[in-house]
């Protein structure tokens, strides 16, 4: 690990002023905020991340979960994944979020990992994590070893010829289906970013993963009030029963009235380069009867743009079955 200066942020303004001196908030950032450290320290040990300054934000007052007057929820940036998953309002109003969080990692990691850290979780692509291999995300222009290499676990949606790395987070998939808003404070003030605009597709710049600029501090995430009579769930398919990243997952938030889907929000995990909201699937479900044939058509629409690699063509069918099964479970419960 490269040496670094560790500083304690007195308040958000000081954290932001310190980080604003970096040239980027993306891969290669010289200044990093540290929350739980479960991604950052792991990558620092591998020399994938080599910050010169690490700013501890754990003591900032960003650790609250609170109900909003409109019935929504605000979640502080350093709220731990365990606390979020077991919060009574999350379990009651946003079960998809609780289930997604509890399907990820382990108790120890969830006790450490933060909300903002999970949003910014880096890919598990093994070529990104191995500094002896080419990787356009880690070292722009060096090439993508995954496209011609071991790519079984990598993305089939939103890929480019430069990068096929999967966004590994379960929480993000639930947040996408719940239409979360990310609140950021930076050198130029505060702004709110819908989660669908927060993560970027790799395109020609896979090293840029989010819209964050130097000094930007995610302060909290808000969720809109739950849609009346809606049901939600998270279904995750993986190689083993626990402590494993998704091969395919589905977050569904639906409203059913008289056997008809009146509203649907769908996001997929394990298959996309970013948390994959599928408006195609939503379009195929809305105002349709809650039948398997409808679910299948919606799943086909969600995966229409899939570009499988040499080892992950199975994910196309797996993701479809995952979504269909999730919709069956959600409507059965109705």
């Amino acid at each position, binding site marked *: *690990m490269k*040496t*670094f*200066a*560790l500083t304690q942020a007195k308040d958000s303004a000081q954290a932001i002023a310190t980080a604003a001196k970096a040239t980027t908030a993306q891969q290669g950032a010289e200044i990093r905020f*540290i929350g*739980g*450290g*479960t991604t950052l*320290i*792991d990558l620092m*040990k591998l020399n994938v991340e080599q910050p010169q300054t*690490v700013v*501890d934000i*754990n003591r900032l007052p960003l650790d609250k979960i609170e109900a909003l007057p409109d019935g929504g929820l605000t979640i502080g940036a350093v709220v731990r994944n*365990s606390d979020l998953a*077991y919060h009574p309002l999350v379990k009651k109003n946003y079960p998809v979020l609780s289930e997604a969080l509890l399907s990820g*990692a*382990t*108790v*120890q*990691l969830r*006790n*450490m990992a933060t909300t903002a850290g999970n949003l910014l979780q880096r890919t598990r692509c093994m070529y990104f994590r191995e500094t002896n291999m080419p990787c356009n995300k880690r070292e722009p222009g060096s090439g993508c070893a995954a496209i011609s290499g071991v790519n079984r676990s990598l993305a089939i949606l939103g890929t480019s010829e430069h990068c096929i790395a999967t966004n590994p987070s379960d929480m993000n998939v639930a947040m996408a289906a719940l239409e979360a808003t990310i609140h950021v404070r930076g050198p130029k003030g505060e702004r709110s970013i819908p989660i669908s605009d927060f993560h970027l597709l790799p395109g020609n710049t896979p090293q840029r993963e989010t819209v964050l600029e130097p000094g930007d501090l995610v302060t909290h995430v808000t969720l809109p009030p739950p849609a009346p009579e809606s049901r939600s769930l998270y279904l995750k398919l993986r190689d083993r*029963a*626990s*402590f494993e990243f998704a091969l395919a997952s589905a977050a569904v938030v639906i409203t059913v009235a008289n056997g008809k889907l009146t509203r649907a929000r769908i996001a997929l995990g394990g298959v996309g380069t970013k948390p994959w909201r599928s408006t195609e699937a939503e379009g195929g479900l809305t105002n349709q009867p809650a039948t398997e044939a409808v679910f299948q058509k919606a799943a086909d629409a969600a995966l229409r743009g899939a570009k499988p690699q040499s080892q992950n063509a199975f994910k196309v069918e797996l993701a479809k079955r995952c979504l269909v099964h999730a919709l069956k479970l959600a409507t059965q419960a109705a």
Partner: protein
Amino acid sequence: MPNQDKIPEKPEGETRSGFGRSTRRTFISRLGMASLLATTGPAVTTLAQRSGKVEQGLSAESKDAIPVTLRVNGKKYDLRIDPRTTLLDCLREHLHLTGSKKGCDHGQCGACTVHINGRRQLSCLSFAALHEGEEITTIEGIGQPENLHAMQAAFVATDAYQCGYCTSGQIMSAVALLKEPCGPEDAEVKEFMSGNICRCGAYQNIVAAIQNVRQNANPQKAG
């Protein structure tokens, strides 16, 4: 397995003379010295010098060292450490609390599990300097050979280990699990323990140890 040799390995044990009263740690290091002495003269000098340097490197203060005060097992420690020092390395190399183990060093095996403010976390994936003012508990703070925690005793009783390397992490997780929202079924215990890998495969007996303790603590709830 005689549990006297198992938990924990006290530094003061190292002053005892002879192999008979050794801890595993001193036994292994003396074994190393013995094999060292059996080699040829020049090789002995080189290796001894090299190992001397390593010792120095561990204790010498880095130019970037920062002051850190930690509370571990109820005891306060004033330290000067390199900011890169993980909590695990700090516990093992600076405080000589070697019960917490380094397995993968990347948050994948759970051997380094400790409690921070009562919650289990991975000491390998955190910097020691981030934990000022927090209450850190290691396996040494859970129980002692003469006064085992119920979970430690249950691990002994059900033979919930073979090589023992993952055991302190397993026990730290198991003790924390008692206060977590874990359902009564074995399947739920397995899910809650999924962050602790046992290469020997003692999983059945680990689950049995945990269920025994839960059963005794709350005969109605635990299955």
